[in-house]
């Protein structure tokens, strides 16, 4: 079969190598730089307790709103006696080390930014896939529930949760996760709707596949990528949301450092010591930008392949 071999060559190693090379080239600086920054933030947040620096709550009464590079005397984390310490990023309005608060505050931002979308993704994704696959009554109930959540003012819900359950990190994560369910459900449902109409789902049915098999092996793996891209954007949105909620006193309670709280606390010193606000703001800005860029790159990697299907 002469034609077959020609076919084989066209589809063979060459096309494969090209695809790999193209993907490598497409990743580029726009992927690695944001990835490196996020890696740094995650590493900092994970190892915050090991660093030779004061605890985020420790106060140096003599060095309030000190400029970056100022040297002062303060107890380092885990120690009781004072030692000389250089405030690399300065101190805040009541004399706490900004670097230490920034690194510890990254935990709050990352936990909220990663766990809340995860809740939204799991719950919303599952609901969306079920609604999109089974249609009918299931879809009606899910879509109506999602519309109700979307129509309910988010701030009122957060106020209510803070008021009745108290402001704490787990409560905040759960509340923000709950609020991100409808959007994830919509993305999942829309993708499932278009997938369920594709012939490969019909082909799987024609081969005797059950609904469960089709959902788990045919639909979900195809929905995961677009959902992940959406989650990347959600991460960025929720990190900013934490910052905004700090201004309303709805974020984590006071002594715990968070980027939002740091920006809020530095607000009064904006003209004399702008770095108190600007440093956490810059950290938040870079992180959000990085997640957005990564999400964008991820989408760029999926889209052309999708269009070739």
């Amino acid at each position, binding site marked *: *079969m002469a*034609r*077959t*071999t020609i*076919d*084989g060559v*066209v*589809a*063979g190693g060459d*096309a*494969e190598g090209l*695809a790999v090379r193209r993907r490598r080239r497409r990743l580029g600086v726009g992927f690695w730089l944001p990835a490196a920054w996020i890696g740094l933030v995650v590493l900092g947040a994970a190892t915050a307790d090991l660093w030779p620096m004061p605890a985020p709550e420790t106060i140096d009464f003599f060095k309030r709103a000190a400029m970056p590079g100022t040297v002062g005397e303060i107890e380092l984390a885990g120690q009781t006696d004072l030692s000389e310490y250089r405030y690399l990023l300065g101190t805040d309005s009541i004399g706490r080390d900004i670097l230490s608060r920034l690194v510890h505050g990254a935990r709050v931002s990352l936990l909220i930014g990663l766990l809340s979308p995860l809740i939204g993704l799991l719950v919303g994704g599952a609901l969306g896939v079920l609604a999109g696959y089974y*249609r*009918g009554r299931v879809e009606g109930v899910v879509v109506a529930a999602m519309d109700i959540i979307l129509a309910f003012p988010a701030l009122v819900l957060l106020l209510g949760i803070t008021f009745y359950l108290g402001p704490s990190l787990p409560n905040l994560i759960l509340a923000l996760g709950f609020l991100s369910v409808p959007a994830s459900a919509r993305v999942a449902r829309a993708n499932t709707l278009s997938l369920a109409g*594709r*012939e*490969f789902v*019909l*082909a*799987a*049915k*024609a*081969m*005797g*596949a*059950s609904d469960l*098999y089709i959902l788990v*092996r*045919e639909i979900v*793996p*195809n929905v995961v990528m677009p959902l992940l891209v959406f989650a990347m954007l959600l991460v960025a949105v929720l990190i900013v949301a934490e910052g905004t909620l700090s201004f309303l006193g709805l974020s984590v309670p006071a002594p715990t450092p968070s980027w939002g709280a740091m920006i809020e606390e530095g607000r009064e010193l904006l003209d004399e010591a702008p770095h108190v606000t600007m440093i956490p703001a810059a950290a938040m800005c870079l992180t959000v930008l990085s997640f957005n860029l990564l999400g964008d790159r991820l989408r760029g990697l999926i889209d052309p*392949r*999708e269009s*070739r*299907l």
Partner: protein
Amino acid sequence: MSATPLLAVEDLHTHFETPRGRVRAVDGVSFSLDRGQTLGIVGESGCGKSVLSRTIMSLLPSNARVPQASRVAFDGRDLRRLSERQLRQVRGRHMAMIFQDPMTSLNPVMTCGAQIVESLTHHMGLSRRAARDRAVELFTAVGIPEPARRVDHYPHQLSGGMRQRVAIAIALSCEPALLIADEPTTALDVTVQAEILDLLARQQRERRMAMILVTHDLGVVAGHTDEVAVMYAGRIVERAATTTLFAHTRMPYTEALLRSIPRLEDPPHTPLQTIAGRPPDLIDPPPGCRFAPRCRYADDDCRRATPALAGDGHAFACWHPLGAPS
């Protein structure tokens, strides 16, 4: 011919409930197919041929209705009376289907091999190891070069022709007794079309399968089927052994289809002989013969009464068949 045919379709109707009314996509189709035989089902777009094949497989969307009287007997069992669970045992294992577009009929996120392995482990109870070896064998059988490497490839790494070969390998994986190929070559270019059709014919002979080849292209059925059924507006209008149908066409619709194929020996700028008008509305079909409004031979009789599909061996539904002594 054995006593019970492999597939017997009797008075099959498939209706779709739409906001405009009931669409009678398949409107009283009967035929039977013996083991090892190949039937071509030909007709233009919207004549119900795809719906017919999906009704046989019980793969209809939820707004489709099949009346109680319709019977699809496969190997003596009425598929219409099987539960969904029993149907899943039949589909893939005993009857399989190939779809029109190999670009969309394979799962983009599973390797080609994995898609075969799944059905082999599910239906045949093979171990994953054995299923993989079997997948390589099947890939070899359908003419995929370097089969051991191809099983680990994703569909997007293969050309259209290769993908259709993978789809055929999946369909053949459990040695089905009946293979339904729904326009298997429509999405492929002409040179690949011939290869795929030859491949299907060879596999059908070697495995002694029955095959239904659904197509809009008379050229496709000509060399590859034992019998041809021509469908128009949800009904079979002519059915005969392939050679008889082409040599002694009786139904004007079939003749019109044949005429509309451009011929190489025609001088340049010969106008294409199209069939005037459009297929009838399946919600409210015209009375009498459904082809009458477009038929060059139609008279008042044709518009009044519906001709029945009649005749042994060569059946046709027409009041004024071609080649009849007038």
